[in-house]
Structures are given as structure tokens and as C-alpha cells.
């Protein structure tokens, strides 16, 4: 990882007057909000990606006479969560922080509503992903602004050579690196086909690997799969819906599927599936492009055969797990007008394009109109490998726990209810009815939230 020449804490001095009209933020125009602004942002794993954000904030800060300071805070060891919790508790800290998924709901009592910024952005860029809306809105108000940085989805990432050789499926043809998809082919990519090919791959010695531990990779994809079967844990009115045919259908499906996975999936952390794919042992995982990016470095032969593409279709639709990040402006922040102006600036199309490029296509904005960025067409090898990373076609983003009330859904997510249910059935060999009863008990506890 190249050491950045500027120190992580970039202190910017104001030099020029604010250029009128460059930043179209009505709440700043007349006051030329000067002063300081501090940000705590997720530390990107792509080498150099942080520098693009620093540069963008530099430029904005110069034009607006604001001194912007950025601390890059890692999610390793959940340091970002620790810091946010401590700041919220102490009512003091950075002005703006990036928050992962549920943390906006967790901290909403001390966050500043951002409706003005969001509405301005929607007016220009169109609707925001429903998952982001669900995670950031409370009492009808937006408390978080979806970021580009760090936001991701977890679609399939498969070895096209193995699928072709052992299953006769040409994934690059079903999901080509251009908008011309054959609807019949796309329709054929269902969970039934996935199961059949998983069995073939397992027998050939190159199984697929679905993490079934308690980290976000596992929770995101498993939740999306349950949703594809139409299974709901708790609905938005706090009614328990876990005991349903859909849930049973999903669990039955997993019972068949998990036997074609390596046994270690129950202990995988977020990097477990990456390492396994990179080692060449696996035929497919569900992950953002980080696995492919590291394979490029460590095992080029594997990287050249990786193809990111849509999730399979289930009875209730085609869903992919989304994990958005959000910017939150603390209610105790010192310089709110400037904060809002900066956030709007960073979310506009041109800035988002630069951030996506810096992340080699890993970052996924929440505006569907931004999916036409050319980064996803250009990175290689193989060319077009991540074209289908943003959800195109009929693929819909999903978050595990939806549609329950966010406080309850956050518990469902963070306590890995779905993956533990699957693990109990498949690894622990417990009968499905018993597992559903256990889930009911857990959900009752979560409804307390």
C-alpha cells in the first residue's frame, strides 16, 4: 500500500473567495459559510482511493472558504462503530461521519435531518435506492445521505471457465457487458438452476461457497435469498411472519444447497469467501469486486476468469444484498450549513464518477441514474468483468431485515438471525419446525427494541 505523501489529516487553508454558483446550495449562497468542518470517513481499502476524496474536499474547501479536515477511520475492529458510538454518547466529535447501514437508525436521535440536501439531489439525479431510503429515513425525515464511498452490493462473482466446463452455462453470455440481455437467458438463471449447477460443481471438486457465519457478507446474501423466496421475519406492523410456507421453502432449499458447499463456510468472516475464491478452490461467491481485485494481485489466472453478475431469480423476485454507507451530520455539529453544502457537492454526478473511478468500481452510488459510469465497463481483465455489478435489469437491492421497523430489523440483521437459522438446519441438523420456533423466540426479544 503506497504511503500517501500528504498526511491523513489534511488541513486545508482557504485561499480564494467562494466562486459564485459553483456550489448550488441555497443555504450557503448568501452566508459564504466560512469556518471549519471535520469529517470522519471510512478508510478505503483500495490504495489511493482516499486521496480522491481528499482532493475533492480540498477543491470545495478552497472555493467556499472552509477549512476541511478528514480523518480516515477504518472499519477494521469496528473502529468506525466504536468512534461513532462514543461521539454520539459524548455529544462531541467530528461534524460529519460516515455510517454503515444501520447506524443511521441507531444514532438518529443525535443526527441532523438532511431533507433539503436529499430533495435537491433527487431533483437532479432521480430516485434513491429503496434500501437506502429505508435505512436512512425515520419519522418521514432523512437522517443520512447515501454515500458513494463504501456503499456496495453483493452479487454473484463466478468463475466463468468452471461454469462452462462443468455445467455448460455461459455466464458471460447470460449477463453480457452491455445492455443487450436476452430475457429468456436471464430468466433461466434461477435458484433452481443455481442448485443444479452447485451440485455439478461440487461433484467436479470446485464447489460454490456461500458464507454462513455471522458477518455482513453472510447476512447480506442469505437475507436476499430468503427475500427471493418471499420469506419475511417481521412485517412493518410488528407482526411475526416467520412461520410461513415461504420460510420453510427457503430453509428446505438451503438444506439442499448447503451440502454442496465446503464445510468451513459456517466460520467464514468477510474475507473468507475472498480468500477461498482467490485460492482457486471455488467456483463462485457473492461479493463486491474486492475479491477479484485481490485475485488480480495474487492469482491472475483466477482473476481472468471472474465474472460479476446478477443473483438468481426466486419465486418472489431477483434480489441482491445491498450494504449502503451514509453520511450523517451530527446535530451537535458546529458548522451545519457548510456540512450540508459539502455533502451535496460530494454526491453530485461528477464527483461520484470520480470516486467510483478511484475505487476501481467497488463503490456503488445509490442513484440508479449513476450506473452509466464507464468505470464498470472499462476495468479488466477480463473486460466487462464488473459491468453487471450495479443492479441492472430486474435485479432489486435488498437489505436483510426488511420490511420490519428499522429498530427491529437492525436486531434481525446484527444478530444474524437468518444465517443462524440456516446453520442450525444444515450444520446442526435441527428440524425446521424447531428452528422456526427458536426464531420466533428470538424475534419476540427483538421486538422489545
Amino acid at each position, binding site marked *: *500500500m503506497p504511503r500517501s505523501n500528504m*498526511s491523513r489529516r489534511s488541513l486545508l487553508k482557504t485561499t480564494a473567495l467562494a466562486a459564485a454558483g459553483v456550489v448550488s446550495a441555497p443555504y450557503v449562497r448568501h452566508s459564504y459559510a466560512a469556518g471549519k468542518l471535520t469529517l470522519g470517513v471510512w478508510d478505503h*481499502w483500495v490504495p489511493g482511493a482516499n486521496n480522491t476524496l481528499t482532493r475533492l474536499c480540498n477543491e470545495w474547501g478552497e472555493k467556499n472558504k472552509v477549512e476541511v479536515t478528514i*480523518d480516515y477511520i477504518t472499519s477494521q475492529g469496528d473502529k468506525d462503530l466504536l468512534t461513532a458510538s462514543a461521539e454520539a454518547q459524548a455529544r462531541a466529535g467530528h461534524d460529519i461521519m460516515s455510517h454503515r447501514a444501520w447506524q443511521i437508525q441507531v444514532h438518529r436521535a443525535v443526527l441532523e435531518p438532511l431533507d433539503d440536501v436529499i430533495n435537491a439531489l433527487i431533483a437532479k439525479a432521480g430516485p434513491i435506492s429503496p434500501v437506502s431510503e429505508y435505512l436512512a429515513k425515520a419519522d418521514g425525515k432523512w437522517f443520512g445521505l447515501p454515500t458513494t464511498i463504501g456503499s456496495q452490493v453483493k452479487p454473484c462473482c463466478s468463475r466463468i471457465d468452471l461454469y462452462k466446463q462443468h455445467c455448460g452455462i455461459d455466464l458471460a453470455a447470460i449477463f453480457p457487458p452491455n445492455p443487450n440481455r436476452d430475457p429468456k437467458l436471464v430468466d433461466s438463471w434461477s435458484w433452481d438452476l443455481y442448485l443444479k449447477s452447485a451440485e455439478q460443481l461440487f461433484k467436479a471438486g470446485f464447489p460454490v461457497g456461500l458464507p454462513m457465519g455471522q458477518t455482513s457478507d453472510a447476512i447480506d446474501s442469505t437475507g436476499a435469498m430468503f427475500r427471493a423466496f418471499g420469506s419475511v421475519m417481521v412485517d412493518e406492523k410488528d407482526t411475526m411472519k416467520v412461520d410461513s410456507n415461504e420460510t420453510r421453502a427457503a430453509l428446505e432449499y438451503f438444506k439442499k444447497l448447503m451440502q454442496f458447499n465446503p464445510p468451513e463456510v459456517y466460520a467464514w468472516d468477510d*474475507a473468507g469467501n*475472498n480468500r477461498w475464491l482467490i485460492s482457486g478452490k471455488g467456483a463462485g461467491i457473492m461479493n463486491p469486486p*474486492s475479491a477479484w481485485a485481490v485475485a488480480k494481485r495474487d492469482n491472475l489466472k483466477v482473476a481472468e476468469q471472474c465474472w460479476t453478475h446478477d443473483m438468481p431469480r426466486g419465486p418472489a423476485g431477483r434480489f441482491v444484498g445491498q450494504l449502503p454507507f451514509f453520511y450523517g451530520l451530527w446535530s451537535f455539529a458546529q458548522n451545519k450549513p457548510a456540512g450540508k453544502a459539502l455533502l451535496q457537492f460530494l454526491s453530485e454526478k461528477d464527483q461520484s464518477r470520480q470516486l467510483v473511478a478511484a475505487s476501481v468500481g467497488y463503490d456503488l452510488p445509490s442513484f440508479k441514474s449513476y450506473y452509466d459510469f464507464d468505470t464498470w465497463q472499462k476495468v479488466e481483465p477480463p473486460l466487462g468483468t464488473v459491468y453487471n455489478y450495479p443492479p441492472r435489469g430486474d435485479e432489486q437491492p435488498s437489505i436483510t431485515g426488511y420490511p420490519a421497523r428499522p429498530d427491529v430489523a437492525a436486531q434481525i440483521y446484527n444478530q444474524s438471525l437468518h444465517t443462524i437459522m440456516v446453520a442450525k438446519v444444515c450444520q446442526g441438523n435441527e428440524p425446521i419446525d424447531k428452528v422456526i420456533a427458536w426464531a420466533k423466540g428470538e424475534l419476540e426479544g427483538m421486538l422489545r427494541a
Partner: protein
Amino acid sequence: MTAQAIATGQPRATVRASLSRNRRWALFVSYFFLILFAIFFLTPPYYMIITSLKSDAEVAHLATNPWIISNGITLEQYRLLFQDTDFLIYFKNTIIVTLCVVAITMVVSVLAAFSLSRMRFWGSGILATGIFLTYLVPDTLLFIPLFQIVRGLGLLNSYWSMVLVYPTLTVPFCTWIMIGYFQSIPKELDEAALIDGAGHLQMLLRIFIPVALPGIIAATIFAFTVSWAAFVYPIAFLFSADQQVLTVGTVTSLIKADVYKWGMLMAGALVAAAPPLVVYAFLMDYYIAGLTAGATKG
């Protein structure tokens, strides 16, 4: 003893011979099990050394023997660690923090131990025994209210905050060791000094510290080890790379999202283990002697 043996009629030579035969057998058994334990204790560090000397590709490669280096020793991981990361900054910060914390800890502990072992004041008995109980609330919980205190003092994101909070981890145990040790010093020495007209401070400096030096060194080593290896407080209070310490810095700069750099991580772990090893190597004997009286007597 040998007199007794003679009294019971056994010739001296036989007694000595059977004792030494027992000793040889005991020695053999000792070495056998010691080797087993040594293997247990040293396997992970050996593996870490080997991994740190391999290239990234070899680490990720499955077919090669993980216990030896197949594709040539490379110092690349160490070079990258020192040149491309902020590892050396973390190292410097950790040394500053640790030296300060050890100094503070020793001053506070020695003074307090002297006071609690020799003098009576209201609550001193409770304090001496209860000092242990300060470990009951774990740092994984304490960091939350401490965040507010650290913030209030303006020390957030500065390694001086570590100098402030680490003593909470080291002082209680060190004080407790010192109390035990001081209590074992015969009171005649006190009286002699008093008759001499020595004040408390002089008594402490001239008599107690020299006599209790092994115990003091033992406590110093404990304080050093704990400060060096602390993890929870740095991760909670320090954000920027230029303020970060070794443990957290190594982990957070070499593991990002789902991307790990194993070779560099192992290299970093070993370099981070070097200073404590050096400290131990020099002060080991004192450490052993020092922990003797402190714990068993008094």
C-alpha cells in the same frame, strides 16, 4: 540431614548415589516434557517468522509447505512495512507512550505501596485489598465514559490520552505487587532509619527502593508489557495515523475491509514483539526474584 541418614544406618555414599540417580531420571523427564511445552509455545512464533519471510504469492498459494520457505527468503514484507506504511511512526509513538506510562506507574505505585504497607490511615486497609477490584469493570466497557473524559481534556486523537488512561491498567497490579514486597521488608530497618532522623521520603529512597529493587523491576516489566500490548483504548481514542500506536496501527493499516496483507502483518507482529523480548532478556532474573516476596509473603 546426612547425620540422620548415618543414624539410621545407611552408608553416606549410597544415599548420595540414589539421590543422584533420581536426579538424573528427573532431569531426563524434565527435558522431555519441557521440549514438548517449548514446541507448543514456540510453534506460532516460528510460523509467524516463516510467513513474514515469504512473498505474498507464496503465502496465498496452497500447494507449498507452509512450514518452510520454498520460493526463497524475501525481506520484501519488512521493507514494505517500514517504507510503505506508517509502521515506524506507530513504533515511535508506542515507545513514547510506554516509557511515560511506565515512569508514571512506578512513581504512583511505589509511593502508594509505601504508604499502604507502612502507614495506617482511614481506608488504607480497604484500599490495599480492594485495589484488585478495579479490574472488575473491563476496558471494553470503560472506554465509553472515558471517551467523554478524554474529550473533555482535549486529548482525543492524541497519544497523550493513552498516557492518561493506561495507568488504570497498570497501577493497581503494580501497587499490589509492591505492597506485598514492601511488607516483607523487616521493620527493624524502618526503626533504624527513624532513629537516624530520616524523613519518610528519605526512608523510601535510601532503604526501601534499594532493598525492593527486584520487585520494582518486576512491576516495571509488567507495566511495560501491558502498555505495549494495549489494544482497546487506542482503537477507541486514536484516529490519525500519526498518533496511532503499534498494535492498533498494524492491524488497521494492514487489514482493510476484506483485504489482508498476511506477510506484512506477521512481520509487523514480530517487530512489535522485539522490544518486550529485549526488555525481558535483560531483566528476567530480577523479574523472577522480584515476584517472589511480593506475592507469597504478607
